[in-house]
């Protein structure tokens, strides 16, 4: 009898252990930065880590905001010449490298056009062709002249690091967390997703991809230690006479990008890389994006066309799960 009671007790204890071990503790912080909600969840580590992660991002924002009158970028844009901090210099140099890499499809000097179309104030207009043409002279990343820490902007150029800032922020925060010994964390910086390691149990993170209208999920990718970044025409746009004009401006034409794609999602280790490529591929379109994929083969992507076709690269075949049965799925880049 005594031994049966002991056995019973052991079973109860084991069962309770199974139940209690299934919740992994984490620290989480939600805040606004770079004009968007951000959320960082960290498994393990000290309680101060989320706050430190937030500070990394808000400190960066203070340097590169286009609207904060104290920021280096604001002052550079207004004075056309400034000696900037090492971090701002590094970010501008990195951005220029990607402008070059994408042959100008991503261009950090496109801000005057974004303003002219009304995407910064929501007073949307369709500018006259003459207005667009006159602003296009300023739109060229080669107008940025760098000498040491001194930056000079020629031809009335203005810089906006919006197409790289969140990706870069995600990279520096994830590096910081890894240096602090964190092996499991997920960052959501205004929809730029960055994962550190896997989920606590070793499972990959499941990241949803928005539908072409941005109001549902068409599928998901399972990732670890990766960034997942989307550029889409549903993020900021206006419609006039049945046509949609989105906030991603084609630097060559001065008009909102219209490449036949509703969204581009890029998956790779680096948030900076994903952020830049997703913008550039949205401008370039499917065929050029596939050319880059075949040439460099260091990222994967999900393209959604205007006609609701989902296109994924071969590296995602085993980790992509389609959830919208109204969409056709194609493999591209073979």
């Amino acid at each position: 009898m005594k031994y049966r009671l002991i056995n019973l007790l052991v079973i109860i204890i084991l069962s309770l252990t199974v139940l209690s071990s299934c919740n992994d503790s984490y620290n989480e912080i939600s805040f606004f930065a770079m004009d968007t909600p951000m959320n960082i969840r960290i498994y393990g580590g000290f309680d101060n880590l989320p706050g430190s992660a937030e500070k990394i991002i808000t400190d960066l924002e203070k340097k590169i905001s286009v609207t904060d009158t104290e920021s280096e970028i604001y002052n550079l844009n207004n004075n056309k010449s400034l000696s900037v901090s090492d971090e701002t210099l590094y970010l501008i140099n990195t951005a220029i490298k990607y402008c070059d890499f994408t042959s100008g499809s991503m261009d950090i000097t496109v801000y005057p056009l974004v303003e002219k179309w009304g995407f910064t104030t929501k007073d949307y207009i369709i500018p006259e062709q003459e207005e667009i043409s006159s602003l296009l002279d300023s739109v060229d990343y080669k107008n940025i002249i760098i000498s040491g820490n001194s930056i000079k902007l020629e031809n009335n150029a203005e810089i906006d690091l919006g197409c790289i800032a969140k990706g870069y922020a995600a990279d520096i925060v994830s590096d910081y967390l890894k240096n602090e010994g964190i092996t499991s964390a997920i960052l959501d910086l205004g929809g730029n997703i960055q994962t550190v390691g896997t989920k606590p149990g070793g499972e990959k993170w499941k990241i949803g991809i928005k539908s072409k209208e941005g109001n549902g999920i068409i599928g998901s990718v399972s990732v670890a230690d990766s960034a997942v970044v989307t550029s889409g025409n549903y993020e900021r746009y206006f419609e006039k006479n049945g046509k949609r004009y989105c906030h991603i401006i084609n630097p060559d034409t001065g008009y909102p990008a219209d490449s036949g794609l509703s969204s581009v999602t890029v998956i790779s280790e680096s948030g900076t890389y994903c952020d830049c490529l997703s913008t550039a591929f949205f401008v370039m379109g499917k065929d050029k994006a596939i050319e880059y994929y075949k040439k460099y083969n260091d990222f994967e992507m999900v393209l959604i066309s205007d006609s609701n076709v989902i296109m994924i690269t071969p590296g995602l075949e085993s980790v992509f799960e389609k959830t919208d049965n109204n969409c056709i799925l194609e493999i591209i880049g073979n």
Partner: protein
Amino acid sequence: MIKTRYWILLIVLIFALSVLLFFIFNNKKQETVEIVQDGTVIYTIDLDNIQNEYDLIIKYGESDFNKVHVCRGDIYISDSSCNGRDCVNRGHISAGGFPIVCAPNKLIIRYTDNRFDGIAG
């Protein structure tokens, strides 16, 4: 001999019940939302257990506010002091499941339980 069988049966039943309870509590679809302002969760609401609909007036600063309507299975911002009113136009949280955001008033309404660990875009 009969008593031993009863004991074995009891032990197996307790273990099976534990495992069953584990799957029930971890897979139960939760319709719980949290309202977050300035990074702090100010309300956690189980939408499944709403008996009577009601409104929450959430103030921000001296004069700004969001009016949040809570009903069984759903929640949305019905009025706001912000200029753009994107948060009002966003509609019900049940439409797509994405957070409802009022950036000027630093307010987020989101599900606490999701099918996905994150949503890109």
